[in-house]
Structures are given as structure tokens and as C-alpha cells.
């Protein structure tokens, strides 16, 4: 049944035929789930291996604007959850996707988002196996929110944990920092800035698989999303009971991102990333990790940015500045606000 009109109305959320038509035309016709049943039934050999564990992670995605240079909310929704599985050491297998749609949203927009999701899911080798749609009134959502939940399997013996990080371990990132945050800030238009910066949004499952294979001693990894690299490092340092020191000169930053940060008085360490992770490996495996990362497209820019140190009385994360001075790299307080003074 073809959909009447080109925008979502409340009727599309009413549980009736209009809803079913929307779901069929926009979602299931693309995702092709095993069946129309609300519940996916899954089995994988990996699951039954003795010692294997199930990994479960969820994220709601609320990016504004929903389409931006380098991606859209669908791409983030797949990559973000795939990455959360991958950085935990799991092999991403299955995803659920729940959509909250604002009345008046263009159906064409939904179709574009769903198309991106399909592409990214295929790239990541995961299946979208079940889903949900809700429609809310105008002004009760901002176009579309997507919540993806990911299920993966952690192979027997793999145990990536922030707690495992030891003094001396090396911290590595896979590429430039802050592109996503900067691209979104520009795309939002509030600050009337224009740039060619693209979101770094990318799935990191293959990268993690490569590193895990190459580095038996891999301690942990974390994608540096909201709160940026600074938050990821602080969380790891806190869990591991270590200090972390990074080198300002080692941080990979795009010129445009630096420019935007200078204009708005922002710190790129706190800008969100959607395809950038930081991982810790024992020093002796650092070269192997770098090589493994650089073997996949998402790891071309892999560099060592710092290392773990014994924890003292002082701050958890510090940065050696250009001049050898030290500054604290604390958790962000609230959200980073553009400032002029």
C-alpha cells in the first residue's frame, strides 16, 4: 500500500494500517528482518562456545541536524552501537532499532536515514533484526530519534577492561580528534560558521578485530564520543586507578578543527567523535597495535598520544603542553559552551 502524503502524521503511529504501511514501506522493506514478528530469534555458533559471553549495549541518538556533512543520524546510530560493542571486545552481531518520529517529518528523510543504516550495517557485518516506530506530535521530538541496541559475542578469553590498564601502557588513537563535534557545530548554523569539516562517523568493528588479533595484551578501548577524548581518558584512568599523561604535540587535529576551536573558545579534547577511539596496550605491543590499526581504513591516522603512569595525589589526566608545561585534562563540567572571553 503506497503511503498517502509525503509527511508523517499521527495516524502513522496509531497502531493501525497506516502504521503498518509506514513500517513496511520505510523500514522492513529495507532491513528485511527474518519476519514481521516483533521479536527476533537468534542463534550463533559463537554464542555456545564455552566461555563466550553475550555483550549488550544501547544508545539513543538525538543529533541536530539529523543530516550533516559526513553522515546522518542513521549512520551514527549504527556506528555508535557497533563501536560500543567493538571497544568492549565483542564481535557485533545483531542490532535493534527503535525510531521516535515527529509528526510532520518527511518520509523521504526517513528513507534516506534507513538507507544509510542498511549500508553501515552491511559494512559492519551486523544485522538489524527487530525494531519499533513511534510517532509523537509536533514539538514533542526533533524530527527523528533513533535508539539502537547492540548484541554481540565476546570470544572466550577476551576481557577488555579499563581496570586492566597498567602504568607504562601506551595510549593510541586511530585518527584526528573533534571532527564530528566541529562538523555538527557548523551544521547547526547557530554560530553562522561554514567549513568543509566532515563528521568522522565510522564503524570501528573491523579495526578492533584487527587490533585484538595483533595484540593479545590489549587492555581496553573506548570510543571518544560525548565529552570527547578528555572524558574517555578520565573514565579509563579512574577505573584503572592510574594517571594518564598525553602529549599536546602528539594529538592529531585538523587545521579547520583548530580554527573552529580558536573562534569559539572551545577545547578540541572535549569535542565529540563518532569514529575515533583510544586504546591502551602494553608498551611492547604498541607497534603491533599501530600496524594493525593502519591496516584498516579507519585506522590510517593511528598515533601514540600518551601513556599511563602510576597514580599519585594529583589529577587523573594531564597533558604535557608544547613547552613541557603541564595542564590538567579534567572531566568536562557540563557541556562545552562557545565563549568569547
Amino acid at each position, binding site marked *: 500500500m503506497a503511503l498517502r502524503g509525503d509527511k508523517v502524521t499521527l495516524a502513522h503511529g496509531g497502531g493501525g494500517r497506516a502504521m503498518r504501511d509506514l513500517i513496511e514501506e520505510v523500514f522492513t522493506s529495507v532491513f528485511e528482518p527474518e519476519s514481521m514478528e516483533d521479536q527476533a530469534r537468534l542463534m550463533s555458533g559463537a554464542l555456545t562456545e564455552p566461555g563466550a559471553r553475550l555483550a549488550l549495549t544501547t544508545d539513543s541518538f538525538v543529533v541536530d541536524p539529523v543530516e550533516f556533512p559526513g553522515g546522518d543520524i542513521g549512520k551514527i546510530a549504527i556506528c555508535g552501537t557497533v563501536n560500543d560493542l567493538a571497544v568492549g571486545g565483542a564481535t557485533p552481531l545483531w542490532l535493534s532499532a527503535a525510531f521516535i518520529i515527529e509528526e510532520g517529518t518527511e518520509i523521504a528523510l526517513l528513507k534516506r536515514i534507513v538507507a544509510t543504516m542498511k549500508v553501515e550495517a552491511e559494512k559492519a557485518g551486523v544485522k538489524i533484526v527487530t525494531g519499533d516506530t513511534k510517532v509523537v506530535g509536533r514539538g514533542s521530538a526533533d524530527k527523528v530519534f533513533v535508539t539502537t541496541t547492540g548484541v554481540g559475542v565476546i570470544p572466550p578469553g577476551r576481557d577488555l577492561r579499563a581496570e586492566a590498564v597498567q602504568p607504562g601502557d601506551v595510549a593510541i588513537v586511530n585518527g584526528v580528534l573533534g571532527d564530528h563535534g566541529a562538523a555538527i557545530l*557548523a551544521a547547526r548554523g547557530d554560530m*553562522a560558521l*561554514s*567549513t568543509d569539516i566532515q563528521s568522522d562517523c565510522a564503524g570501528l568493528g573491523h579495526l578492533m578485530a584487527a587490533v585484538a588479533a595483533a595484540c593479545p595484551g590489549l587492555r581496553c578501548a573506548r570510543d571518544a564520543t560525548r565529552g570527547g577524548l578528555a572524558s574517555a581518558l578520565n573514565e579509563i584512568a579512574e577505573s584503572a586507578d592510574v594517571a594518564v599523561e598525553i602529549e599536546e604535540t602528539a594529538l592529531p587535529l585538523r587545521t*579547520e578543527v*583548530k580554527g*573552529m576551536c*580558536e*573562534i569559539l573558545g572551545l577545547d578540541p579534547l572535549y569535542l565529540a567523535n563518532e569514529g575515533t577511539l583510544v586504546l591502551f596496550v602494553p608498551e611492547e605491543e604498541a607497534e603491533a597495535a599501530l600496524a594493525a590499526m593502519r591496516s584498516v581504513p579507519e585506522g590510517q591516522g593511528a598515533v601514540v598520544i600518551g601513556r599511563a603512569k602510576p597514580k599519585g595525589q594529583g589529577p587523573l589526566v594531564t597533558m604535557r603542553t608544547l613547552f613541557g608545561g603541564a595542564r590538567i585534562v579534567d572531566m568536562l563540567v557540563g557541556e562545552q559552551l562557545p565563549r568569547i*572571553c
Partner: protein
Amino acid sequence: MCLGIPGQIIEITDEARLMALADVSGVRREVNIAPVLTGEIHDLIGAWVLIHVGFAMALIDEDEAAATLEALKGLGEAQETLEAMAEGAKALEARA
């Protein structure tokens, strides 16, 4: 206070309102150029200005910048020479 950053004027966008596009490391923003407008408006294209809250507040004086840098560079080189000498002295000592 008073975050200000250097940028280059690349285009006049609204002559009447004295607006121009400025480029800061590849990030572009429309700014008001009233404070730096002394002659023909289009002569500003290519000029480096100091930008604060969307206004070009000052023209950057290239000569003054060069002079300051020159002095700093001199210092830096002197320092290097000093260090090299210190190294040399140390090496000599070690050999001794």
C-alpha cells in the same frame, strides 16, 4: 577576556552593511568590517584582521609582527647556540 583571533578577509558579502567573509584556518564566517575600513572596501580582500565577536577589530600590522618574530627568533637562536656550547662543554668534560 576578549577572545580575538587572526583571520583573512576573502570576500565582501554586503557592501551596504559592511559585511565580509573571513577565513580562519578554513573556517569561514561573515564579519563586520566597519572598524578596519579606511579606504576602498574591496582593498580589504586579502587583509589579515583580528576578529572578535563577529567584528574585524584591527588590521594586523605585518611589519610589526615580523619585527616581533625576528626578535623572538634571535632569542631562540641565541638559546640554541648557548645550549650547543653547553653540550660541547659537557662532552669535553665527559671525555676528560
